[in-house]
């Protein structure tokens, strides 16, 4: 291969005058982390609500949950972000649309909310599966104790269901972080975006993307370690998730 390797490129000043290429990638990494965490919080909140809705005895609740999940998971994430960013403001009344468009940091909020809602569908399905995997006796015991449905979920079902789905939730968290890369389509210059800029400016493609790969790997290792620690500290001896 006829390629001019130059690993010291990271310490050369980037055009734009804000520092070296390495600083450029770091600022992208920081934006990726922020977007990922914000999106994950949204995914957890909405995913939990919708997941519970899907297991309630009420038909209406079930259908709302069903519609939510099918809407968000059956459309490619790229298309969803594009719709939120470019199409939604055009459908609103003109003054609202202009307000949305002129909001500072619009790509950041759109990306975090868009990725968050997309991932919430996946969290919902997993939580519903977690609740369904509990023995029926648990719910009946809660009712027999005189707990309301809300209390039954809050004190009996959800604490165990969340423990059961902890391992798949870890991978959903990782997916959330990786999915933020799609946000370059709406102009959020996060880690992947910065790596692309770097390769356009310097033409050192492989160095730029190697560095981005290593950075993604590092964040994900931190997340996996953290989640494993959390899993262990929450385990209850005697249950399927405890030892």
């Amino acid at each position, binding site marked *: *291969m*006829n*390629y*001019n390797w*130059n690993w010291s490129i990271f310490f050369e000043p980037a*055009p*734009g*005058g804000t520092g070296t290429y390495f600083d450029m990638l770091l600022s992208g990494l920081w934006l990726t982390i922020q977007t990922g965490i914000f999106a994950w919080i949204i995914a957890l909140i909405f995913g939990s609500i919708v997941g519970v809705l899907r297991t309630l005895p009420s038909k209406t609740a079930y259908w709302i949950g069903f519609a939510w999940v099918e809407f968000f998971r059956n459309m490619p994430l790229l298309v969803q972000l594009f719709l939120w960013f*470019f199409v939604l*403001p*055009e459908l609103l009344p003109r003054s609202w649309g*202009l307000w949305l*468009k*002129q909001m*500072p940091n*619009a*790509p950041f909020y759109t990306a975090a909310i868009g990725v968050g809602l997309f991932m919430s569908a996946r969290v919902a399905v997993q939580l519903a599966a977690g609740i369904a995997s509990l023995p029926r006796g648990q719910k009946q015991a809660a009712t027999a104790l005189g707990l309301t449905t809300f209390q039954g979920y809050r004190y009996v079902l959800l604490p165990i269901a969340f423990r059961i789905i902890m391992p798949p939730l870890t991978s959903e968290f990782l997916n959330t972080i990786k999915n933020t890369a799609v946000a*370059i*389509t*709406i*102009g959020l*210059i996060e880690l992947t*975006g910065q790596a*692309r*800029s*770097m*390769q*356009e*400016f*310097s*033409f*050192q*493609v*492989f160095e730029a993307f190697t560095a981005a790969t290593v950075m993604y790997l590092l964040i994900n290792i931190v997340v996996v370690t953290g989640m494993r620690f959390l899993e262990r500290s929450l385990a209850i001896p005697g249950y399927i998730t405890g030892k």
Partner: protein
Amino acid sequence: MKHRHIIGCLLAGALCATPAMAQELTGTLKNIKDTGAITLGFRDSSIPFSYLDDSQKPVGYAMDICYKIVDAVKKELKLDKLEVKLNPVTSSTRIPLLANGTIDLECGSTTNNAERQKQIAYTNTHFLTASRYVSKKSSKINSIDDLKGKAVVSTSGTTNIKQLTEANAEKKLGANIIPAKDHAEAFLMVETDRAVAFVMDDILLASLVAGSKAPDDYVISKDAFSKPEPYGIMLRKDDPAFKKVVDAATSALYKGGEGQKIYDKWFTQKIPPKGLNLNSPMSAELKNQYAKPSDSPDPDAYK
């Protein structure tokens, strides 16, 4: 001994053959001769340089120049038949695909600058373009100073966004610079009022405006962020034999009248697929370049 016989033949063959060949072929030329094929990299939406027409065939000004180069290579290698393979490239894939030998020439609209020349080589410049901005006539942006405090978009990773960032700091415009993923999306931002102006190479702006829903709504600025910068066709670095052939071919094309004809075909007449006309006659700088072809990355060399 069978082996010795073969080796003997090979040695004799080599000895006999050497004087007949003018010189040993190396690099890309050898590769083309061995495989009987040359691979051109094309862009899918760099109108009018290299893009797909309505039958999904790559066409354009840079493609036409590349086909002329192919003819010259065929003549140089004295081949009866040279197969032309076409391979799509994007701004992210063009360097790796050129470096690993997938494509031999990149026919598109790649800016030639000194930093990039550390990685690849360019043949003679085929176009010069300055960085300008497009805005809606209704937003009344008459000069760069009018961009003060406004949202301005440019495509991320381009030399244009770099010039915009510099001008923003230098002139204290305080403009909010939004990076977009590609040209189409950046233009969409102006179309939907997310930004008041889009800073890009003027020729690309002209093609975006010509292809938009309401071309009359837009105006391209007189003010420029840069001197006209050169576009070049990329080839692999450190391959002087191939570069010599390619340079000779493009030089002959530009100096003869044929280059001008190809230029007129793509820039002053209707082009497929929608019958747009870019109405961009050749600039004084490009006329100079045609008279005295050069591959210099320095804009001042083209005055």
